[in-house]
């Protein structure tokens, strides 16, 4: 991989990082709602959701630190939620069902 040693920040990079954050936010909101629906059951189903939540939170933290490195004055709280993370599973409610069953194994 050929690299040019430059620290130039481009709009493309910013868009990519913010999109990454927005998709993480979207998936976190979805999973938090799923966790609430499933209740406090300590079986394998909720375990996988919790594990995924932990991983997503860690990823989100990493992206936040990266965005602060990119531009410390960026208001990261203004980034909302995106749903691109659901695209590999299809569209609409079917996609959500597929995602859920893929996670919980049902």
């Amino acid at each position, binding site marked *: 991989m050929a690299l040019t040693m430059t620290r130039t920040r481009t709009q493309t990079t910013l868009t990519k990082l913010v999109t*990454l954050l927005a998709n993480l936010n979207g998936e976190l909101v979805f999973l938090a709602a799923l966790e609430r629906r499933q209740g406090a059951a300590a079986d394998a189903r909720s375990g996988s959701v919790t594990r995924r939540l932990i991983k997503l939170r860690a990823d989100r933290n*990493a992206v936040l*630190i*990266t965005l602060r*490195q990119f531009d410390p004055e960026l208001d990261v709280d203004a980034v909302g939620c995106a749903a691109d993370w659901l695209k590999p599973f299809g569209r609409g409610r079917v996609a959500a069902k597929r995602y859920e069953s893929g996670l919980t194994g049902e």
Partner: protein
Amino acid sequence: MSTPRTRTAPEVKWVANELAAVNGELSRIDAEQERLTTRKAELDARRAALEQVAVMLRVPELPKLGLSVRPHDRYGERGALRAWVEALLQATAPEAVDTRTMTDLAAEHFRFDLPTPAARKRFMDNTLVRQLRVLRDEGLAERIAVRGSALGRGGSVAGQAGLWRWKATLPTFAELQALRDREVELAPPSEGFTDVERPGDAAWR
């Protein structure tokens, strides 16, 4: 009866002072070590975050390449020189500052050496004036032409340091008039006066 004056032997005085200086230098080193430990922890966390983002961007091999550069940190952080130049011009506004003075102040503020005239000129021309031109292009600063000096473009004199000042944003006549009209509209009617009788109105119309 007053206590008799005592005199400290000069060698004792010297050793005491040297000890104090060494203690001071050691405490400075301790403080710097603490700052560096905190900074290292911060950077380790940042490195872990960037490596994680590399995985998310599907280039997990990126951290293994072991890329390393020593970023230019003369001014402390990105944007520090610009912020300093802006603060200086704003503080001295509406007076102008010449680039030679700015060079001296910058070297003192950021604690770097410009030991030779060539080094000073390089900093002034390549760094300081470049930053001033950026501010000028953004409409924040302006270069003052020196009147009465016919040499060079823009009235500048060859060999003379440029004068720069913060660009004042003065309201236009139309803006002042609009402001006055708004105040007149909002102001409660005074008893015994008509609009025509209010002082200053006749001058505007």
